[in-house]
């Protein structure tokens, strides 16, 4: 084991960490990518060679200090190299969401003033060319995948590999300059700029310094004992702060290996082949996998199903306790061991979770059943709470203190306080420098003492010191009768049902709560197949009376559970409808990180909301949709509205 923590005073930039890794663990793998069906790997030494060649190429193209270099593409080693190469030149890498449509991209490119753009493939290049006349300052476009690029005008365009080749041939010219630029980097130079997905308004460019990233990486790597030899799978958008922290910050700090999938569609196969030891996924990935397992078990033979049910019952009983190191009887331990051989081990292998030491989920609330399922298998799945402005980490759960309804204790080096109105504030070494070209927003988010408002309402639990988050502070409201309105709380309960993909609850300043529901096509489609329900489209399935019956059952169950909490009893859903289309980021209804944009949904579907409140039992609607290539279309539907039984309204009436 190589000592990785020694003299940190000189390690003030990602390129400096790279140099250290080359010196200490140069022959160990830094990146792997599956290409042409085989995992290709690059050691830290090879990675350094690639990045330097790219950096020299950037210099020869005229990259200046402080330039912004946009990177648009899926997770591939070359794209990560481009980010570090940009840092070497004193420029700022700006990774963008690759599924953004051209218009969204135009805003960000214009805002950061990027002169150089690195594109993953032809699709991204086409988008850049489409907006080129609106974003004047674009000077040079580089692309990674040559496919289909031959016929393009290359006077201001080049393949990354060619940029490297040219630079390698003429390396004497720029080597001195590159060494000088790397030496200029210090702890306060900008490491990366990331655009927030923006639940409200235009995206904001969050400037994170080397200090933010490296301090956070150092603290959190220590918290979870991450080390070189660990493996991660880089599959989440490069524009998301989490990917930057995991695949760059922590990877360069500890020297672990970043594995890139072959294509987004092969992610599950690649996950299984790599078997990461450190893994992050939003709740929907875990949900999706669990749904898959359950669907396949439905179709399994009787013996297998019986065995699965028996051992899963046992695992739910004792699995989490064994994982947390709590006392469990010898007999149960033996039975759990047997279950591990027969069920848990093979299942974990199928899921690609055989080697996981640390797994995290965040971003949305995770259903307790889902969370417990993975924990009971012996997978150390934990929760964290964070945001871009904090370089991810605000709170996280220490090993052995893991629960589904809290988000853990403050991360090392982070201070957290709760304001009078319940809003959570934090201050940490990872706290962002500023919003790019937006001092007003910076000032309104971060006060003079460095405290940042998260916009979330929450409280510390008595006794454990764990933080619990209720909802977005601005979404928490009052109903007409004065009851507390916390939509997210109810939506999460609804979304814990595998059949419900998304839910949006309304009711602020109104007399009762109502909801839109999105069904999960995979889960409901499978259910329909097993019950001989024929359907031709998502829309038809969503409007099927038996699907309505099923969803009504879920809504009423949620009402019963909401009613149990006197503070939130007013949030029971009285009426609901199932939407005829999936809420989609392309239509602006969700953010790119799949969070509901409430105000947009409220204005777009205003007539549906009115219908929920005026007592009608069906409504005709036409909705505009945007296709992947940016074209628009409309879908028409007549939606049914159902009433759901609510609990305890009589007692409330009587009390009034």
């Amino acid at each position, binding site marked *: 084991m190589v000592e990785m923590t020694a003299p940190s005073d000189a390690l003030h930039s990602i390129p400096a960490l790279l140099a250290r890794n080359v010196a200490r663990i140069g022959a160990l793998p830094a990146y792997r990518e599956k290409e042409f069906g085989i995992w290709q790997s690059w050691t830290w030494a090879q990675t350094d060679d690639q990045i330097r060649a790219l950096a020299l190429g950037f210099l020869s193209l005229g990259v200046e200090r402080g330039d912004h270099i946009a990177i648009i593409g899926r997770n591939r080693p070359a794209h990560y190299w481009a980010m570090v190469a940009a840092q070497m030149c004193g420029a700022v890498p700006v990774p963008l969401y690759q599924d953004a449509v051209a218009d969204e991209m135009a805003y960000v490119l214009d805002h950061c003033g990027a002169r150089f753009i690195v594109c993953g493939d032809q699709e991204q290049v086409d988008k850049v060319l489409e907006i080129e006349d609106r974003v004047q300052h674009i000077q040079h476009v580089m692309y990674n995948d040559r496919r*289909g690029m031959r016929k393009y005008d290359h006077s201001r365009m080049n393949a990354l590999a060619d940029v490297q080749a040219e630079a390698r041939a003429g390396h004497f010219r720029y080597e001195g300059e590159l060494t000088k630029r790397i030496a200029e980097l210090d702890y306060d130079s900008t490491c990366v700029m990331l655009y927030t997905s923006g639940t409200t308004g235009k995206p904001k460019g969050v400037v994170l310094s080397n200090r933010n990233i490296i301090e956070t990486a150092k603290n959190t790597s220590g918290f979870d004992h991450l080390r070189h030899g660990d493996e991660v799978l880089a599959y989440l958008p490069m524009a998301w702060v989490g990917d930057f922290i995991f695949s760059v910050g922590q990877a360069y700090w500890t020297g672990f290996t970043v594995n890139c999938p072959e294509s987004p569609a092969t992610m599950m196969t690649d996950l299984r082949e790599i078997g990461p030891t450190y893994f992050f996924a939003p709740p929907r990935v875990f949900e999706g996998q669990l749904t898959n397992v359950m669907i396949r078990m439905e179709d399994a033979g009787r013996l297998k199903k019986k065995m699965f049910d028996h051992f899963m019952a046992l695992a739910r009983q004792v699995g989490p306790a064994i994982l947390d190191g709590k006392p469990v009887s010898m007999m149960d331990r033996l039975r759990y061991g047997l279950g591990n051989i027969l069920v848990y081990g093979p299942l974990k292998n199928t899921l690609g979770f055989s080697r996981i030491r640390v797994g995290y989920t965040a971003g949305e609330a995770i259903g307790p059943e889902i969370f417990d399922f993975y924990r009971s298998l012996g997978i150390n799945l934990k929760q964290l709470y964070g945001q871009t402005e904090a370089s991810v980490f605000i709170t996280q759960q220490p090993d052995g203190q893991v629960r589904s309804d809290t988000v853990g204790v403050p991360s090392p080096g982070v201070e957290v306080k709760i304001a009078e109105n319940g809003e959570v504030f934090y201050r940490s070494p990872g706290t962002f420098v500023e919003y790019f070209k937006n001092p007003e927003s910076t000032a309104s988010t971060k006060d003079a003492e460095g405290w940042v408002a998260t916009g979330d309402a929450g409280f510390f639990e008595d006794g454990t010191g764990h933080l619990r988050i209720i909802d977005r502070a601005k979404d928490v409201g009052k109903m007409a009768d004065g009851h507390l309105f916390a939509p997210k709380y109810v939506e999460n309960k609804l979304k814990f049902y595998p059949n419900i993909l998304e839910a949006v609850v309304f009711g602020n300043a109104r007399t009762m709560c109502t909801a839109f529901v999105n069904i999960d096509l995979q889960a409901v489609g499978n259910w329909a197949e097993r019950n001989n329900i024929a359907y031709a489209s998502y829309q038809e399935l969503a409007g099927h009376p038996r699907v309505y019956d099923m969803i009504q059952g879920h809504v009423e169950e949620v009402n019963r559970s909401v009613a149990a909490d006197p503070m939130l009893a007013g949030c029971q859903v009285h009426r609901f409808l199932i939407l005829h289309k999936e809420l989609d980021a392309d239509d602006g209804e969700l953010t790119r990180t799949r969070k509901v944009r409430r105000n947009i949904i409220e204005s777009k579907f205003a007539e549906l909301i009115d219908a929920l409140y005026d007592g009608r039992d069906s409504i005709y609607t036409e909705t505009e949709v945007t296709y992947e290539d940016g074209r628009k279309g409309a879908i028409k539907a007549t939606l049914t509205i159902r009433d759901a039984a609510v609990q305890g309204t009589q007692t409330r009436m009587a009390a009034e």
Partner: protein
Amino acid sequence: MNAETAMKTEGYTTADGRKIGGVLMEMKNITLRFGGVTAIKDISFDIRDGEIRAIIGPNGAGKSSMLNVISGFYVPTEGEVWFKGFRRGPMKPYQVAQLGIARTFQNIALFDGMTVLDNIMTGRLTLMKTGILAQAMWWGSAQREESAHREKVEKIIDFLEIQAIRKTPVGRLPYGLKKRVELARALAAEPKILLLDEPMAGMNVEEKEDMCRFILDVNDEFGTTICLIEHDMGVVMDLSDRVVVMDYGKKIGDGTPDEVRANPEVIAAYLGVAHD
């Protein structure tokens, strides 16, 4: 030497700047009869190196018969087929493949029980040199050879973006993907000329667009000459460099998409004529 013959040997440059070579395959006065039925009547045309050539026509015009003549499956009753400057005689299917001609079928002809990868590997059968015994033992040169072939196949899998279904049995795939796998298998044979029998039939708009892009990319990246039959006029006109139009076994038009579109006979065959 007149302009016509100059074009034949020296080729031409397309509107989008691609260089098209000389004549690769030439049909001379082809007639094909099945007993009393004449499927093709005295048709002549050529296919040039590197071009995308389409054969269109209403149902029963004789397009598939023509493709079968090109592929060597049918021997024309009269007329000659010249390929790479030689007159072609009757051939066995493996000889066709060895000549560098590969095709896909209108109603997909893949091995349903085999994986996508194995199906594509069969496309390289004629390129394998080691004997059946050595392959069965999977030892020495056979092993090395298979690795080399697998590498080529992986390039094609990457090219057609079907990595995610590499190990999936073909029988479980949806129609659009099967078509793509069939194209992959045809490409695996590294053909000089690729014959596509209605590659877009039965596809939705998105699948059609994908398929168009793949056909253009194949032509562009590998320089493969492509001859295709297609019903969708929009697709044909966008995709091809030159078009042959057939009707009732006869050739009624031949030229660039614009020329063909303006041809009164073609308009009559497709849209009908007003009788006054």
